[in-house]
């Protein structure tokens, strides 16, 4: 009897040693540098997307004001410049709430990266708790904004989604702070992630909406330019006027090309996929295959984010 128990005990010890060796080998297969690189790239690309989204949203009022100006001139109506200043379809507060929510999501993903490395320390717990509080504050701020009908964005819906993400991140933070088992934390991350990705999706939709409006306004400007040129040709065109048309049309073509490059929607969509890959990596056995999937998702995100900064700056200076 004693011999049987001893044999089982030795067998378990061997199994444990083998598991540890296997785990160490896996860790060697995806060492810290290999893991840190995509995480650093994710953070850099996220910073680029945040600043681009902020610039893009900031430019929206100018675009709508210019659209109004173009239409007034095209229709040969009376021009009141002070009227243009009154057009504000997105307020600085709406922009702040959206970009800060995106920033909080990026920081949360960084914390997930720390957790995936087995670094569920007090700092990560505290920081995740702060992010949850910060998102709760943003949800409250969004609630105070004007209702959907009078504004470009649906602030009430946004507030609800931010609030859901805040609760989800708060639930994960609570487990980290309470030093719960790693497996339990990982399960909670996966279970709560739908609310987090919903927020990324909402920010992506808002950015896509802003892009669609800019594209439509620019298209209308092109229509007006073309028509005016045709009208000028049908009369007795002044060569200087025609040259002026050429200059304006060249600027329009440049803006059209830059606008395509400046769309932050696809980059945010890739950011969502990279985040989902990280969550899958956290929950996985962290082998080279899951790391490779994470690296691929991050690379696609980096590629999508790369042209944004320059394109948005060029677009804004051309507006």
């Amino acid at each position: 009897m004693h011999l049987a128990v001893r044999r089982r005990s030795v067998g378990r010890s061997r199994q444990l040693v083998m598991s540890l060796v296997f785990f160490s080998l896996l860790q060697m297969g995806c060492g810290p540098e290999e893991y840190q690189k995509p995480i650093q790239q994710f953070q850099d690309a996220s910073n680029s997307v945040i600043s681009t989204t902020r610039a893009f949203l900031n430019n929206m009022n100018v675009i709508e004001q210019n659209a109004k100006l173009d239409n007034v001139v095209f229709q040969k109506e009376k021009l009141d410049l002070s009227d243009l200043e009154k057009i504000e379809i997105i307020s600085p507060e709406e922009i702040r709430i959206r970009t800060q929510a995106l920033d909080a999501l990026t920081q949360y993903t960084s914390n997930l990266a720390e957790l995936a490395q087995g670094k569920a320390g007090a700092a990560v717990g505290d920081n995740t708790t702060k992010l949850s509080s910060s998102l709760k504050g943003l949800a409250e701020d969004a609630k105070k904004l004007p209702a959907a009908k009078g504004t470009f964005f649906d602030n009430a819906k946004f507030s609800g989604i931010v609030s859901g993400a805040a609760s989800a991140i708060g639930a994960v933070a609570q487990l980290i702070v309470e030093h719960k088992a790693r497996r339990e934390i990982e399960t909670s991350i996966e279970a709560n992630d739908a609310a987090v990705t919903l927020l990324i999706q909402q920010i992506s939709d808002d950015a896509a909406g802003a892009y669609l409006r800019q594209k439509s306004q620019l298209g209308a400007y092109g229509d007006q330019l073309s028509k005016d040129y045709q009208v000028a040709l049908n009369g007795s065109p002044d060569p200087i006027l025609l040259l002026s048309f050429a200059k304006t049309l060249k600027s329009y073509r440049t803006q059209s090309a830059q606008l395509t490059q400046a769309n932050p929607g696809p980059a945010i969509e890739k950011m969502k996929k990279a985040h989902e890959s990280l969550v899958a990596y956290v929950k996985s056995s962290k082998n080279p295959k899951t790391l490779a999937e994470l690296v691929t998702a991050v690379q696609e995100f980096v590629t999508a984010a790369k042209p944004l900064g320059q394109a948005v700056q060029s677009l804004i200076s051309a507006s």
Partner: protein
Amino acid sequence: MSLIEVATVIGNVLTQIDITLQTPGLADPDWQTLYALRKHLDDEQRDLIRESIEEENDEYQALTTQLNNASAQLKTVIGDFSKVATTISIISQIASYADQILKLV
């Protein structure tokens, strides 16, 4: 199909209209009709972006299917100046579907 996807379909229609409006050869009355329709679709797109809807609603799903079909149909005729009347008719239909969607939100 989400509202942002509907707004994207409208955006693609707007782009096709812009290409037509920017191509010489369209008779002025047709140009003006298309431009007026463009303005209407542009207003609808702005409204769609800021609204929310229950995507599982049967009526909404039927309308988005009709919108997609009309958008696909438009691609086969737009740009052909001998089919301007058909083009205008399909765009009017698209605008009508978008109007009906906006009534559901």
